């Protein structure tokens, strides 16, 4: 698997290949904790302005401007405030945070301390997905190092600012990546999302003001402080600032984690050249899910020769979304009915069960898919699936419902043949489903 930067200096990936990059010593030797020192000399308002200038958008999938999120935290609240890192990374196709957590834990710690100082929070939690348990030991060691070096705890670097950071684990629930469900889980409850408003910035963990950010979002912060907001932004485009990590998997020769400047052109070049092209040379590109399973699937025609730029705007224009940057590439051996069924099973399994459309809709869709795969598809099934999606989309309690609907909707629209051959009584007997 590849880990490398293309089209820019490695920033996020700076320490990926440096031996012992996860230790405080090497982190410091490679410029670590310089930004913290600088930030602690700035005023919180200046930091927020710098982050706003960088046009950093949250890397967890929703892409909300980070500077703006931070500015929502009430300054005069008498309650304690919290900074929470979302290391739940459970979106199928996304695995970038795992490498940051494993090989550059101090970058996250530094980012979180800067956020804590900016927002007046004295406690931070890093919420790991339960399966990443082995990474917690890495972070606990890094936290201990930082504490011993006076970078965490009481009176950080003699500035009077105090903060502590703890690791916390989930236990197998995709929905806990959704920030309010994450907070429920962090409080020891079932991982159900909460009503918004109030937003976490006002009432989050323990009903106190809380900022939740993705790992990559926090690790961007020290870079932004170091370079200055606009300089960091200018690595990318006006609206999509900086660089971005992409997780690439599926039928490419060199799957891996790639750092690209925002606005990288173009998607075809990235897949066909940078990632080594199709895994099997004789198989053509058929489909790409560009941003993690929760975005629209694209067919080859939407990509090849279209000059799709890799940033928030470019992917929307091309008919999908950037999401978490978890790109899954599929060649022509793939049957999109089956891959869609696979994702539907995922969403059914991960639906928290709180609201009606998502809970019942995902179950219903899977039942239909299984019937189709068993050779009992009916011509009306595609329409029924689309209508179920329509009845979920925009009506569920949290965005997981939408995420369950989009892959199905786009698959049926972009790959009608793959569905129709299952639903057409004349042919479906001859196809063996891989289930």
């Amino acid at each position, binding site marked *: 698997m590849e880990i490398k930067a293309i089209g820019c200096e490695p920033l996020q990936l700076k320490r990926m290949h440096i031996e012992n990059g996860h230790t405080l010593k090497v982190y410091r030797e490679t410029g670590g904790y310089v930004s913290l020192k600088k930030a602690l000399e700035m005023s919180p308002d200046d930091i927020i302005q710098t982050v706003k200038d960088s046009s950093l958008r949250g890397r967890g999938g929703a892409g909300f401007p980070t500077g703006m999120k931070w500015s929502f935290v009430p300054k005069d609240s008498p309650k304690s405030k919290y900074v929470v890192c979302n290391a739940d990374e459970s979106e199928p196709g996304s695995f970038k945070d795992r490498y940051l957590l494993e090989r550059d834990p101090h970058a996250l710690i530094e980012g979180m301390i800067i956020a804590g100082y900016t927002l007046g929070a004295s406690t931070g939690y890093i919420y790991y997905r339960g399966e990443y348990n082995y990474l917690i030991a890495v972070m606990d060691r890094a936290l201990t190092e930082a504490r011993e070096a006076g970078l965490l705890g009481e009176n950080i670097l003699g500035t009077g600012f105090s903060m502590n950071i703890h690791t916390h684990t989930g236990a197998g629930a995709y929905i806990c990546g959704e920030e309010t469900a994450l907070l429920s889980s962090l409080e020891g409850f079932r991982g159900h999302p909460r009503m918004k408003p109030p937003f976490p910035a006002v009432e989050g963990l323990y009903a106190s003001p809380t900022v939740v950010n993705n790992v990559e979002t926090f690790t961007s912060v020290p870079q932004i402080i170091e370079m200055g907001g606009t300089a960091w932004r200018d690595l990318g485009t006006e609206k999509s600032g900086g660089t971005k990590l992409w997780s690439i998997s599926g039928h490419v020769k060199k799957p891996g984690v790639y750092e690209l400047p925002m606005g990288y052109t173009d998607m075809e070049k990235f897949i066909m050249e940078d990632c080594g092209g199709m895994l099997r040379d004789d198989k053509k590109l058929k489909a790409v899910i560009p941003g993690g399973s929760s975005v629209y699937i694209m067919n080859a025609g939407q990509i090849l020769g279209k000059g799709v730029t890799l940033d928030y705007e470019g992917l929307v224009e091309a008919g999908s979304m950037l999401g978490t940057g978890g790109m899954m590439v599929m060649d022509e051996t793939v049957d999109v009915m089956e891959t869609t069924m696979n994702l539907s099973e995922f969403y059914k399994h991960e639906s928290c*069960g*709180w*609201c*009606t459309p998502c809970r019942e809709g995902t*179950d219903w869709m899977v*039942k239909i898919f299984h019937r189709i795969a068993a050779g009992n598809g009916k011509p009306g099934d595609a329409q029924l699936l689309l209508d179920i999606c329509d*009845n979920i989309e925009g*009506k569920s309690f949290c965005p997981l419902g939408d995420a369950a609907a989009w892959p199905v909707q786009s698959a049926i629209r972009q790959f009608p043949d793959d569905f129709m051959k299952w639903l057409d009584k004349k042919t479906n007997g001859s196809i063996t489903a891989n289930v």
Partner: protein
Amino acid sequence: MSTELVKITLNGVEVEAEKGSVLIDVCRDNGEHIPSFCYYKDLDPQASCRMCLVRIDKMPKLQTSCTIKVTDGMAVTTRSPEIEKAQRSMGEFLLANHPLDCPVCDRGGECELQEVIFDWGDVEERFTEKKNVDPEKYLSPIVANDPQRCILCKRCTRVCDEWMGEDAIEAGNRGVNTVIGTYGGWLNCSQCGNCIEVCPTGTLLDGVYRHATRPWELDQTITTDVYSSDGMQLSIGSRGGEVHRIVARDRYVNGLNGEFLDVKARFAHEFINHRDRVKTPMIRYSKGGKLIPATWDAALELISQKFGDSSGVVASPRLTNEALFTLRKFAEATGSSLAVSDRGDMSAFFANMTAPLATHRDIRYAKTIIIIGGEPEEEQSFTAKQVRQAVRNGGAKLIIVNDTPINLKAQAAKFVHIAPGSYDAFALAFADGSDVSGKLGVDAAEIGAVRDAITAAQGDVVIMVGNDLSPAAQAVIAASAGGFAGDGRRVLLHPLPLYNNSVGAIDILPNARQIDEVIASAKALLIAGSLQDASALAGKDFVVVQELFLTDTTEHADVVLPAASFAEVDGTFTNNAGNVQRVRRAIEPVHQSKPDWLITGGIAASLGVDLELESSASAIFRALADTVAVYEGLRYPALKDESEPVQAKHAVNESVDVTSAVNDLRTSTDSLPENAEKITDTPVIGHKLHRLTTMTSKTPQFHLLANGNPKPANLLVSPLVQFDADGKPKEEGFEEAAAVGIGDRILVNITR
């Protein structure tokens, strides 16, 4: 909630609404029908069923009207093809895995899901896959559960948590596998049954009533609870002279308690049609002999011969006001002395009130609540629920003063843990700041802090007084309350009496004397109900008892007259908020029983005494209202609507002189030990529920019984075990009971 009005546009029409009110309520108040399942006015919103979707201008998606607070200028559409499709699709989703077994479902005819779907009429069934299945089970002897019918509105888990503070039932598993249940499958709680009541479908069911009749075959009679002094409104479902179930479903009742009831009110009704009821008058022809069934004429004839001079009357605080008033008239006409068979008499509280009584609504919206003594979650469960919600949903500050760390303490901002039985000392310190910290085991500053909390409060302050306080303590607290009122602060009082009509007895029988005196001085006695301690009756010349069952008291009776239960009579009870509420006859008096007032009237007639009362409950009430100042002007028609309870006019004094009470407190405080050891165990909810409040004069002995076997057939709510004042069963069967695992909880089935 502010009363500021805002204007919103609803389907193109401008309407006014209270600022901050919930959109779904506003729509409904304006005649727009919006389906909903998870929305429940009195609970935290959860917005999970997604039925109540509407469109609001300038908002991107359809919005759940249950979560939107109206703001000025909001433009709302509740009817459009888009909205109808969304709502119907939610109905379709809910039915996907829901069995279509309405014909055999116990909720058939009362099911909210059925109602919504039937209202739409033409529902196309597109779900043709296999439905998920989940077997039916019992969560307790009285709570049956059919998980397949569950739509996960979670009203049950929310009432359990928010109303009861018990958290006994929760959701388990995830996604489409989510179930409502408990660890181990056993509902470990006070068995209040509110989860059954609020369940919109046939998922949680009354295990006692199950499969008994269809709901539409029942006559529904709205009446008042016969157990607690909260005066909860409920509906008796009866058929053919038999009571089948009791519910508070607000489709029948719209009383002060909404859909809230507790285990006694809801389930402990089998006594009404129980086979052990006294069926005919009974006479004991010679002392020490047996009670022999007799005719009414023979019984009254005997009474007319034997009921002579120096007589006494004992009235139960469970009787209707009408029965109590008739007993009073009887005592006056025959020159008898009169007593109330009550423990924890609260007349001193009422005599010294310097602030008005709080209604239950006042409690729910109070900003500060102080509970001195008492244990409302056991004895006044609805009051406890209002307190809990005032704190949880309304942000009220709760201060508890108690010698026991009661469960409500979990909600309290401050718990003043005093030494056992030192309420007199507390009352003294509370009223005049005396330093009695040694006796209380609490710093003087803490008592000062309680006073400061009141004087600093904004909004309503409710001071609750338990029936375990001495008369002097009650008097002093009631007398000092008024002095705390101030700018922006109303001070209200709320007593916590034990019985359903304790307050009526105080109002109607102001001249009642101590029961020991009355029994000691009388040769002949008329006792309506039973006594806590019947032993004093030994050696009396002649004892007449009006009762439902044979009890310790009837063992001393020469004549027992069969009395009708609350389900068989018309009348009124007065609750702890001073609300005078109707009791209505749901079934004819069973066997040869008669309403108590009619029995007493018959005795008077046989003695040739004229009580000057007409022979109907409404006429007696009219006479009562003309005599008792607190009830002045009241008539049955004015009490018709249970949604607008009428408060009696309890006198609020400007100020009262409590010098002698204070002196009493000083004396008793002096005799308290210094630094007594404190009670540290929190009692389990339900430890009294099943005994003290059910063990009372009128229906002294019945009890919720179950032997731990889940089948409802083995559940008995029946008069089989008598209890002592300390809660121990009296009957020999107790050893047997203990062997099966008798706890502080639901007891045991001891069949005779």
